[in-house]
């Protein structure tokens, strides 16, 4: 099989679906510029023209509304943002219009828009260029929220969003995953929205993760093996709706749970997953120890690297949190492990 990077996989899905479905259009600030949304839309306009690849002015609120209007009248717009933070300018359109339209009118109309937004991290992206807003959007009934963690899923989930769904779908992509490669089929295939996947099988503890945290958790699970702990890593893939079946099944099997999210704890994905497990009698009774959550520090992201380094949890944080769940004691990993290799230095320079 052939390998593609996350960014290339998104571009391929967009290309193939646009060829198939003339109602698909793409809108975003910079979709046709030389960097083309980190490569995920670059040069598409050469094939499909600037009528379908709309490099819009800086008017997030209005062009999101425009996409919603186009969607309810037969188009399938994909919106792309270089950062999650810019979604907040379109919050009303997303949360009060797109999410509720179908419901308010008894399903007489639908808003099949796909909104892609990239999470920035590192190199001093700072408080307003590094937010990961999955929790905010998963709060709203009527939205679906997807967080691909690898190139295969990035393509398959986008295909599903564009062909099998009628709801507004938010896809949260991580900048640090953009260069990560894996096998990606050339043909069009779909990965169902609402289904998690087992990224690694294990028996002692379940680590539930999203997006970049899946990659970190996989590295952590290798270190855990060395320490005699077999971790099952679940990649949520979709955070709304959650794949309750898979989460519960794994927890009942391993009887221990760690949740790792690339976002804040409070009212976050990790809070929701923990609540779901606590509410389910079988899962709750299966737990041998308290649930542990690993997430960002409860502060905005600082710019200086001195603080940025401790703001984000690392592989070591995941390893020690897992050992704590299993052994019931705090373990300081710092001295044992050098910094993780997977993501380090993948993103330097300005943007």
């Amino acid at each position, binding site marked *: 099989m052939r390998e593609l990077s996350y960014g290339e996989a998104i571009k391929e899905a967009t290309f193939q679906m646009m060829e198939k479905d003339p109602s698909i259009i793409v809108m975003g600030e910079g979709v046709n510029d030389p960097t083309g949304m980190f490569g995920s839309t670059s040069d598409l306009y050469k094939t499909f023209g600037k009528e379908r690849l709309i490099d819009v002015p*800086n008017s997030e609120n209005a062009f999101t509304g425009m996409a919603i209007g186009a969607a309810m009248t037969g188009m399938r717009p994909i919106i792309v943002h270089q950062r999650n933070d810019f979604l907040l300018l379109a919050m009303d359109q997303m949360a009060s219009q797109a999410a509720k339209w179908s419901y308010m009118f008894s399903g007489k109309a639908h808003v099949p828009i796909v909104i892609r937004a990239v999470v920035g991290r590192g190199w001093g992206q700072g408080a307003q260029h590094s937010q990961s807003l999955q929790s905010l959007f998963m709060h709203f009934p009527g939205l679906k929220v997807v967080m691909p963690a690898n190139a295969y899923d990035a393509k398959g989930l986008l295909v599903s969003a564009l062909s099998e769904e009628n709801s507004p779908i938010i896809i949260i992509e991580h900048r640090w995953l953009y260069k990560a490669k894996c096998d990606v089929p050339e043909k069009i295939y779909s990965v169902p929205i609402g289904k998690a996947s087992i990224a690694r099988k294990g028996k002692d503890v379940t680590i539930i993760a999203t997006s970049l945290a899946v990659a970190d958790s996989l590295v952590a699970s290798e270190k855990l093996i060395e320490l005699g702990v077999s971790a099952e890593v679940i990649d949520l893939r979709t955070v709304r709706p959650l794949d309750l079946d898979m989460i519960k099944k794994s927890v009942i099997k391993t009887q221990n749970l760690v949740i790792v999210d690339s976002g804040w704890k409070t009212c976050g994905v990790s809070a929701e997953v923990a609540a779901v497990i606590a509410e389910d009698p079988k899962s709750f009774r299966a737990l041998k120890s308290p649930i542990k959550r690993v997430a960002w520090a409860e502060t905005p992201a600082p710019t200086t690297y001195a603080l940025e380094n401790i703001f984000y949890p690392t592989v070591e944080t995941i390893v020690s949190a897992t050992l704590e769940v299993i052994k019931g004691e705090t373990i300081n990993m710092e001295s044992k492990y050098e910094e993780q290799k997977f993501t380090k230095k993948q993103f330097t320079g300005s943007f």
Partner: protein
Amino acid sequence: MEINASQSKNFLYNLLKIRLVDEYIADVYPTDVIKCPIHLSIGSEAVSVGICSALKKTDMVIGGHRGHGIYLAKGGDLNEFMAEMYGRETGCSGGKGGSMHLISLENGLLGTTPILGSTIPIGVGAALSSKLKKNGKLTAIFFGDGASEEGVYYESLNLAALYKLPVIFVCENNKYSIFQDLKARQPVDNLYKKGEAFGISGERVDGNNVEDVFLAAKRAVKVAKSGKPYLIECVTNRWRQHVGPFYDHEIGFGTKEEIEKIMLNEDPIANLLKKAKKAGFFDDKFVEKTRKRIIKEVTNSIEFANKSPLPSVEKLYSHIY
């Protein structure tokens, strides 16, 4: 109104300071000592210098992602600026902000933040405060041609006009939003007229000519003092890439010839020198002296930044409620 020699010398000092500081940052950036995104003010120095020179120290300003010029032109401390670039505790934002989040309250800079258009209504709010307190302070709001596309800008124009607030809207039109040309984003090239529907007068000036910007700002100050907002569009250029230290052509966009032509014909510093020398305000020797003085300041600021500590771990949790 005529420009005098001392004003002209001040223009030179400020233009050259922004230029030399940003050139230093561009030079050192590839070595990774500065670890945050940078949007340089090289080529557009006359906008912030012209506007801020017409304001009092107590007047307020606010801006967006491209804030180096604004910070320095409003009198922000250079040591604290450099320390902020280096992520140090002594930086103007304690290292937590970096290049995109600059503040100098002692000099009236309320802050710069990089969500497009977001600081425009905040500036209007500062002006509301001045009006209610009757303290006579003005507020100048800096934003780019790209930020002018955000809906909040038009809402802010309405509010400022409705409540008769002492605001000067300053649109720094460098004709680009990242790689996107203004023509591809707006149907009519009339940024200075955007306030008309709200009864806000505006004018377009050559943003590469500090005297022109200054004189426009003086007119604006007069109008704003009478309780009416005013809008100035400054047409200028950014010489370097949108974010980062290089030239666009070095990253495969545009041509070397294009930018060299702009640098040759539309350089705010060269424009000032031409006029000042003709008027007999100063000579080459004075320029050289000024340059040396600034280089010393820059050198000191680098030393200050290098010597300053990085924020300690517990600072991560400070300043959160």
